[in-house]
């Protein structure tokens, strides 16, 4: 979003409509906000009414410029009120969604969609929000059916990738004994393949990448190893082309994590080294490239280089992200046969995890680290 959306000059006309607040959730000073507003995934976007400090609208994940413009317009309505009919129902659904009351939100989004006129301009956003609410309540079948039914109407929009992949992801979670599963998987896999076969220009590249990722999961579900590998190879080519078109190092590095994940899945971590070295060179303040290099070198069993990269990442990292870097480091020590160093590293991670402020501290993470320590 920072590299591709918030830099778009089409947003300039919205500058005076809001106070624009950007919060790095890894920084300790923003932990109270994270706790208060339940930020359990990033990126996450809110429209907040400053009088009550209540969230009027929330959006999880990325958005294209046109999607963001609709979110901004709906956020104004949600704060100012005055919406009527279906817009009022949508604003009510948005408030439930913002309060993470997903069961209620799903019912209200359905109500809005049911009451909407045929060419309702909010159809895509309401559908995507409904899908997320159904996903959160683990109503897999309803999620998949909603995506299947909405896709024909959205296939020519910037929501196509998300609806297809999210629907397929839900369909794969439907229990195998459910007779509806096979048809849902087949239909949504076909929809997903149609998205990647000729991606629209207004689709976010990371959304298309997520479609490939879900298609790889679908092939894995079908126990088709060769098919999965083919999808991963296509995903790698797509991401390499997208990175090749990037105009700045920031814009190019957006694809680093997707590419690294793909190369790891292919069993070819060495393919990530040149891009990560370039990112480390071009973005010297960013801890991500050396942190990712540590992962790639570990997969290649080049342990000393993994530890050196980990040192460089730790020197720049802050907040909860340091825990992930320390865990990779402990894994490197363990695989190298130095169990004592692995233990010391996990002990360091536990100490850090316990010292994080509320909003960043996670009991689940602390428990997982302690379990890992016991296993060493």
């Amino acid at each position: 979003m920072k590299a591709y959306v918030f830099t778009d000059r089409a947003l300039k006309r919205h500058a005076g409509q809001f106070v624009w607040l950007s919060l790095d959730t890894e920084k300790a000073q923003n932990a109270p906000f994270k706790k208060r507003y339940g930020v359990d995934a990033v990126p996450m976007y809110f429209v907040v009414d400053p009088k009550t400090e209540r969230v009027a609208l929330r959006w999880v994940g990325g958005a294209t410029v046109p999607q963001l413009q609709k979110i901004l317009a709906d956020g104004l309505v949600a704060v100012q009120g005055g919406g009527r009919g279906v817009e009022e129902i949508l604003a009510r659904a948005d408030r439930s969604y913002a309060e993470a009351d997903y069961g209620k939100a799903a019912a209200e989004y359905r109500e809005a969609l049911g009451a909407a006129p045929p060419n309702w301009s909010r159809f895509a956003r309401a559908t995507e929000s409904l899908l997320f609410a159904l996903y959160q309540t683990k109503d897999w079948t309803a999620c998949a059916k909603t995506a299947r039914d909405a896709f024909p109407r959205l296939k020519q929009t910037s929501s196509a990738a998300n609806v297809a992949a999210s629907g397929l992801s839900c369909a794969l979670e439907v229990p195998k004994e459910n007779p509806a599963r096979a048809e849902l998987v087949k239909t949504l896999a076909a929809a997903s393949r149609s998205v990647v076969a000729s991606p629209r220009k207004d689709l976010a590249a990371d959304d298309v990448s997520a479609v490939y990722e879900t298609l790889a999961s679908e092939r894995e579900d079908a126990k088709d190893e060769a098919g999965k590998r083919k999808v991963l190879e296509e995903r790698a080519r797509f991401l390499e082309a997208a990175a090749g078109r990037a105009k700045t190092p920031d814009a190019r590095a957006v694809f680093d994590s997707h590419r690294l994940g793909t190369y790891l899945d292919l069993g070819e971590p060495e393919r990530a080294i040149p891009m990560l070295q370039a990112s480390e060179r071009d973005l010297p303040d960013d801890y991500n490239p050396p942190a990712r290099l540590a992962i790639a070198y570990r997969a290649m069993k080049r342990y000393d280089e993994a530890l050196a990269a980990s040192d460089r990442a730790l020197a720049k990292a802050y907040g909860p992200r340091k825990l992930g870097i320390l865990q990779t480091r402990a894994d490197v020590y363990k695989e190298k046969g130095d169990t004592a160093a692995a233990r010391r590293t996990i002990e360091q991670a536990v100490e850090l995890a316990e010292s994080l402020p509320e909003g960043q501290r996670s009991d689940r993470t602390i428990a997982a680290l302690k379990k890992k320590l016991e296993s060493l």
Partner: protein
Amino acid sequence: MKFVRTAALALTGALAAVSASPAASREVLPWVDDYGSAVAQARARNLPIFVEAWAPW
């Protein structure tokens, strides 16, 4: 929404889908980075607050 992606982003895992350098361009929108001052400004100007909660990984 992108929850397929978000499921991975929610964790403090080693891989994450979005890179968001703090150095990213800010010239299009007048961002602030402090919640208290955003609330004060918004109340004074009678404007809602748009919040981007992000992580640099």
